[in-house]
């Protein structure tokens, strides 16, 4: 235990660590941003058209359970141990929770609000941005939080198995050289990274979902 703590502290004085940490954090955040940018509009598109939803459901359900880890060799073959491969796998693995949540969230849009939009001629764009998106946000939020940890996990695993730059490589090295304390220090670090991101999400949510019952000030 104290060994782990010591190793943990030692990490911060280690220049290589900061390189790898930077690489992991970078690919993770970029990957997550792409995930959101892809999955939310895609979910809105699919979720708001019955034809699209029915047509794509089989293919999506088929793709969802494919473990990104099984795709690493293919990714390596196509891109090598490069950032593109890592980002592709992150997006592939992390987009499903957001997509699923958006599709479900669309059902929750209040029909009185939609009628209102129609009578006031809000148009498709306004209807989507002003009514559908805010209604769906409470669904997107947990989806994104799940995706964030999945993205972190995939980043780590592609680094471990696929040799892309990052903390995962350090973990492999620690594992194979029996540096157990360092290994667990890295594990603790991933957990803390997840914790930090969650805090960031909470803060953003509290801001963006101020109106939502879950964030309204306790009335009692």
């Amino acid at each position, binding site marked *: 235990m104290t060994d782990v703590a010591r190793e943990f502290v030692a990490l911060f004085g280690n220049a290589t660590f900061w390189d790898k940490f930077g690489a992991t954090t970078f690919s993770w955040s970029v990957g997550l941003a792409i995930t959101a940018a892809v999955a939310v509009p895609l979910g809105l598109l699919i*979720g*708001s*058209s*019955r*034809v699209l*939803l*029915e*047509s794509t*459901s*089989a*293919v999506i*359900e*088929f793709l*969802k*359970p*494919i*473990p990104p*880890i*099984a795709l690493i*060799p*293919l990714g390596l073959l196509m891109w090598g141990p490069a950032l593109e491969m890592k980002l592709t796998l992150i997006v592939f693995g992390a987009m*499903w*929770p957001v997509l*699923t949540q958006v599709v*479900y*969230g*669309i*059902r*929750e*849009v209040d*029909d009185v609000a*939609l009628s209102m*939009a129609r009578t006031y001629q809000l148009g*498709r764009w306004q209807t*989507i941005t002003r*009514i559908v998106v805010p209604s769906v946000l*409470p*669904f997107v*939020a*947990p*989806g994104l*939080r*799940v995706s964030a*940890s*999945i993205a*972190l*996990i995939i980043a*780590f695993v592609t680094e*471990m198995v696929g040799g892309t730059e990052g903390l995962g490589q350090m*973990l492999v090295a620690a594992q194979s050289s029996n540096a157990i304390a360092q290994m667990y220090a890295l*594990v603790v670090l*991933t957990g*803390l*990274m*997840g*914790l930090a991101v*969650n805090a960031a999400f909470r803060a953003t949510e509290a801001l963006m979902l101020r109106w939502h*019952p*879950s964030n*309204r000030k306790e009335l009692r």
Partner: protein
Amino acid sequence: MSVDTTSSVHQTVTEAAAPAPARRQRRESDGGPLRGRRGRVILLRAWLPVTVAVVWWAASAGSTSLYFPSLQSITETFSRDWFSMRGLDDLVPSLRNLVAGFAIASLIGVAGGLLLGSSRWAAAAAEPVVHFLRSLPPPVLLPLGLILLGTDAGMKVAIITVGAVWPTLLNTMDGVRGVDPQLRDMSKAYGLSLGQRVRYVVLPAAAPQIVAGLRTTLQISIILIVVSEMYASASGIGHYVLTAQQTFLVTETWAGTLLLGLIGFLANLIFGVGERRVLRWQDALRTNARNG
């Protein structure tokens, strides 16, 4: 009716701005005989997968690419390896672990989400642990699992559970917190018991969000079959896929991946049946709002 309701509820959104004639047309054709409608739904669902399969088959025919074998050889390997006794040996333990892991994850997710969603104290105390744990990569948790739980099936179920519980937990938590304050007031004013509140008010109100979480839990459970069999396994779908990968048996890797996709597809079909039952009122409400 029941066939298309899951998705047709979304119609309203497009309708909000859809050109009117299209709407009119749809309504008229809706009036057709049930058989025709069901046929169309099946057609709608099948055209894309069938197209993908055909295109894949054609494009990969006679493939000499080492990592992209022809679909034909993949399906041959698939039927060789999965339609056999040995296939059963791999399939049965994996599916058993999947079902057990998913079931436990669902229960813990919903129960834990209810608790964390309804009590600020519980949430404040438990959330840091939750978010810490859910960020740990399962391949890293695996060794911990080995140390704590040994090498038997229990460990694999535990890996699936621990990895897949989070979407349901987070969604239930958020869903419970988002219950209309008016409904909370009503439950208090009528002195509903805790059990009644949970069973008749909170759970149904949070159901759409819980169900969405369960879908993702299901997806992750299937993925975790593979991860859980990374170590301490001598059989199972994950073992098959990983060993094939390690020994460059590309066609087998594809066949295993195909199987995972199929399991996901079938599991979601089953899930959809249960979901329609749970959310029947919501479906009816939405359909009703649309057709008026």
